[in-house]
């Protein structure tokens, strides 16, 4: 009903390969972008920096994991470790006096190098074995962080992040932090949107579908897997650094534990493998829904005058939230992104069931 396609034609290949071919998609994206831009003025500061900001940074991080898991099809259970590498190296660089712009890039590159180093070793194996190897990486990183005071300051210490400054401007306000997160998320999203229509993106998909079939087609699957790991690790590194610089302000090993790795993977899977819009939804669900459910349960129990003890109260949201994930994956195993796609398809052919010749 909202999707009007008549009169959309392409007179050259440049126009034919544009990102948003459907005018309605383009308009919707522009609208959401404008809302994102105006968010500090319409959303109360509390919600802005405790919901919107982490949502955007985690979305950027999830998109990075989606690149390796959704596009290249490689299961990755040590993503948080890669984020940690980026976070610690950036902060150290910044503390050393390197401007933040470069510190972030240094963080990204360090992550990229370490991520691909592990990938070199890990990619000799496939599937579940790869998953286990990446998990091992997570534990190695955890161990290194807790046992090397030079990096983390020790097992129970945390590392103070210097004040973020970009383009010679110190950033101290909530609005400022929000715009940094927003900018990074938009940047990663644009990169991912473009990935779809490049040779790199198509090669990654070929590798995902069947790596040896891709090899037969002349796609060097090992090279593309490494490239996917390196790129995704770069995104992870910068996201990790920004997370500390704009949200936590302190870096501590437990912020990047194995539980976090699993959580990011859950975001990607619930959102939908290989789906960009899905990553936004997935992060929102995993990150924000527990809080909302918690609020709901508390209001409900208060409103109904039920005496629920604190322990149960803490568990109900978790149970609800777990059930929600199960239900979503039961309804649509391909995740929230696919669910959105289904709705889009339904409206796309409106008022027909499918467009017939």
């Amino acid at each position: 009903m909202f999707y009007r396609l008549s009169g959309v034609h392409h007179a050259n290949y440049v126009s034919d390969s544009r990102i948003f071919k459907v005018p309605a998609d383009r308009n919707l994206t522009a609208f959401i972008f404008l809302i994102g831009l105006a968010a500090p003025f319409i959303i109360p500061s509390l919600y802005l920096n405790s919901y919107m900001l982490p949502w955007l940074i985690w979305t950027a991080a999830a998109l990075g994991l989606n690149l390796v898991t959704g596009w290249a099809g490689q299961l990755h259970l040590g993503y948080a470790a890669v984020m940690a590498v980026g976070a610690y190296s950036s902060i150290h660089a910044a503390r050393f006096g390197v401007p933040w712009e470069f510190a972030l890039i240094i963080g990204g590159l360090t992550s990229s190098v370490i991520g691909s180093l592990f990938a070199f070793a890990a990619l000799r194996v496939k599937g579940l074995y790869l998953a286990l190897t990446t998990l091992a990486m997570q534990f190695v990183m955890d161990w290194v962080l807790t046992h090397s005071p030079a990096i983390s300051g020790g097992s129970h210490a945390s590392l103070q992040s210097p004040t973020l400054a970009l383009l010679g401007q110190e950033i101290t306000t909530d609005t400022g932090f929000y715009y940094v997160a927003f900018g990074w998320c938009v940047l990663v999203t644009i990169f991912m949107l473009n990935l779809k229509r490049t040779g790199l993106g198509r090669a990654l998909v070929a590798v995902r579908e069947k790596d040896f079939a891709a090899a037969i087609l002349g796609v060097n699957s090992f090279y593309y897997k490494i490239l996917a790991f390196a790129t995704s690790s770069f995104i992870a590194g910068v996201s990790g650094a920004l997370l500390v610089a704009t949200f936590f302000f302190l870096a501590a090993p437990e912020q990047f534990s194995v539980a976090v790795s699993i959580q990011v993977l859950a975001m990607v899977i619930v959102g939908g493998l290989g789906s960009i819009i899905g990553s936004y939804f997935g992060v929102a669900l995993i990150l924000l829904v527990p809080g909302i459910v918690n609020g709901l349960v508390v209001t409900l129990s208060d409103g109904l005058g039920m005496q629920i003890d604190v322990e149960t109260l803490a568990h109900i949201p978790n149970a609800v939230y777990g059930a929600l994930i199960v239900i979503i994956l039961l309804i649509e195993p391909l995740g929230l992104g696919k669910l959105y796609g289904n709705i889009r398809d339904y409206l796309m052919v409106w008022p027909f069931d499918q467009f017939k010749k």
Partner: protein
Amino acid sequence: MTDLTKNRSSGGETIGALLAKNASLHGKDIARREKERGIWKETTWAEYAQEVVACAAGLEKIGVKPGKAVLVLGDNRARLYGGMLAVSLLGAYAMPAYPGATLEELRHFLGEVEIVAAIAEDQEQVDKILELKDAGAEGIDHIIYDEARGLGFYEVEGLLSWDHLIEVGQHDLNETPGLREELLSRAKPEDPAIFLHSSGTTGAPKGIVLSQKNVLAAARNGHAAGAFDENEEILAYLPMAWVGDYAITVAAALLWRFTVNVPERQETVVRDMREIAPTFYLAAPRSWDQMLTTIQVGIENSTPLKKRLYHFFMDRAIAAETRKLNGKSGGVLEPLGRLLGEAIIFGPVKDQFGMSRLKNAFTGGEAIGEDTFVFYRALGIKLRQLYGQTENSAINAIQSPGEVRLHTVGKPAPGVEVTIAEDGEILVRSDSVFEGYFNKPEATAEALEGGWLHTGDAGYLEEDGHLVVLGRVSEVMHTAGGERFVPNYIENRLKFSPYIKDAAVIGAGLDELTAMVCVDFEAVGHWAEVNGVPYVSYADLSQREEVATLLREAFQRVNKAVTEPLRLQRFVSLPKEFDPDDGEITRTRKLRRKVVQERYADVIAALYDGSKEVHVSAQVTYETGEVGKVERSLPIREV
């Protein structure tokens, strides 16, 4: 250039002069788009004119000159249109033929005029021309092809690609200064624009040459009557050998600078139409019916919510349009329903079929059914009727957007004089009327008697100047009881049923009327699926008792609309569709009454001798040219 302006001021436009004018004044505007591998390749007027001139120079080199003809064979291709223009620049005859034309039909053309070259779409058409050459058309020295696929290893003398022809022509243009201007101003308004053929419902097709003056006058008249505006977006999908296509896609497009969009293939027309969303669209009533069927079938297969919403808005809109057609005023809530409906249902439906930008929608060639007509009006498409024939470059009368009535075809276009002869025949006088049938002085004298074109259609003018067309004069028949009737009129009413594709009404000189009908396979097939009626083939489906009930309802509805003695009494549903390859209908799907009456003489006899069943063996021509037979016993059914 000076004499070009003189030509224009004296009203004598030519194709060359218009091409030159468009190229110089609107050189950067898009003249045409052709879809190739998903991309609409654009050509500006300047490039287009250059290509046509180069083609003309090339054609001249291979011996095309006034008095000779060039056969144009294929589906709509941008280059074939360009080739036709190039032939007109040289003052020769561009002779398009239906791409599905059989060898027999093409051979008929050979006897009329010397064909020296042919422009073919692809290998299939080249093969056909080669076959034609073997069959005696030695005169065709050169065959120019557009699509090279499959032709790489052909070793035929005179076979050359379009690109090569252009190259040769371009070379000539570069060598000879002034040749371009000379070519563009060579042809005079009286020189031929196109060599078409009458549809040949009775006897062999007659050659019809329309001069450049004729076709451009028609384009001017059409514009004056509000049929099209300047710079329309149009889709070139009608058969190139039909006058309607030439009048719109070539003549009007040149005069009013349309952007002509050529679809990738015949099979992709529906999709391509959506991509282009034309502002002007002309289609036969059959195509409008077909689209209506597709929409309805699509809705029936849709999800419950969509279906319910569709019916909610559509049923009300149709009721409102019907009221309007009958001169009643609508309810208070009507505009609101219209507005919501447009956003929720009508807009999306139009969008799906590429009709969202449609301003000038036309139906022509035959009468259109009320249901179809009202449906499109309800959808918000101002469907109008257009009346014309090949002899008059397709444009006689056009309905204006405001005053649309179902039974008239509108007022005669400005520049067209219409009068009614004493016997009820419609006579036309206009600049767009042709000079006469090619090499047929007797037929010409008959058709142009007294300076008026005798259209052969019976009709009358209403008091307010609207023209009503009843049918062919030659088809006015009388029953044994002396009752006058026009079979075509009744057949059209039968065809308004979505389930009947073709019909032949019988009864001249007999006591009562009967009919033979061909069911519409798509519509009836779908109906059978939905209603659980099993069938294996067209022949089987057409004879099912359930289908007969369906047809009976259609007959009863028609019988209600005609007077008592003209009611149809019995009918037979034929086991095969009428097919132009079998000669039962023309390529424009008009009934060849004589052929049908001869071929189905047994059936006709059985319709009147009281038998319950008739054995029939119908001829079927396959695409390979082989002839087969369909044998079957058909029950005779009472209405």
